[in-house]
């Protein structure tokens, strides 16, 4: 912006100022929009993942709505055996449009809701 003021040397800085301000505002708005989009995307993954858990565990949305970072999954919920976890991961692939590699799957990622959500959000963000 300073450079531009220099290039437009004959101009009154007062006339440039509003443009600069507008540009600045636009940049801020862009950044805000980007962060809003990221937040919205992360929230979307959260709600989609909860829906998948509802469908796999046969629970009501209300029960799963209370899942937080520390809610235990694999090893904590008896119905989540290896076949059910496989189904969960495969359904995540289909609904979130991601690919889960063998090496992505580890105990930490599956142990808590927070672990699984963080994994899914990273995968989705990577596109």
């Amino acid at each position, binding site marked *: 912006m300073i450079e531009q003021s220099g290039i437009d040397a004959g101009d009154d800085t007062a006339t440039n100022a509003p443009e600069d301000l507008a540009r600045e505002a636009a940049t801020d708005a862009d950044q805000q929009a980007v962060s809003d989009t990221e937040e919205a995307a992360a929230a979307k993954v959260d709600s989609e993942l909860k829906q998948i858990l509802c*469908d*796999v565990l*046969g629970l009501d949305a209300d029960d799963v709505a209370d899942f937080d970072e520390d809610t235990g999954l694999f090893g904590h919920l008896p119905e989540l*055996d290896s*076949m059910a*976890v496989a*189904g969960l991961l*495969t359904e995540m692939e289909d609904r979130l449009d991601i690919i889960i590699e063998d090496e992505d*799957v580890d105990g930490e990622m599956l142990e808590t809701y927070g672990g699984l959500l963080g994994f899914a959000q990273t995968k989705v963000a990577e596109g």
Partner: protein
Amino acid sequence: MISQWTCTRKKGAASSELALQFDGDAAFAEKKLLILPAIFDEANKMRRQTMLLMRELNAAGLASALPDLPGMNESLQPLSSQSLTQWRADAVLAAEQLGATHVLAIRGGALIAPTSLPGWHYAPASGARLLRNMLRSRILASKEAGREESTAQLGEMGRKDGIELAGWQFGAKMFGELQDAEPETSDQHSIIAQSDLGGAGLWLRAEAGDDMAQVKALAALITNTLMPT
């Protein structure tokens, strides 16, 4: 009613297989629905739902038949010597013997549904999708037991020698066919998506369950077409 049908093949002896049948209402006797159920792990998840559907159709007057194909369910034939190609031929034979006029294929059942009969594919699944789930289940179970296995390694084993996945023994031919199998559709078949029924597919459930609202929605889609009032 549980009846029997005889599966004859070009090679090997004929096998006697069971079929679950509902007679429906004599007034609609000219129509009968062949049901090709979900297969492998999903068969267990969908069994009760499929049964409830047959009862619901019967109550509406529509006859239906659910045959075991060799290697499925109560069949005495080993799964490891079956293939999708063979099952497709068996399904045509079962349809003829059981007098089916229409077909409803559920999930992986769509991979072996006769294209000669009009009907529906409910939430058809590709062979690759079914395999992916079972391979992943085996890898997870092995990991828990302290063994490292990979999809690539198991895939190679499956294609070469056959493989056991989630308790199902697949021969090399079945495994290889599943990798590429897609539901066969024709102009005669309509697809019923899960979203048409509402709720989530019961095959996703960690523990098998049932959903009467979905049963009624699915039965209504079929009877509205086959039994216009």
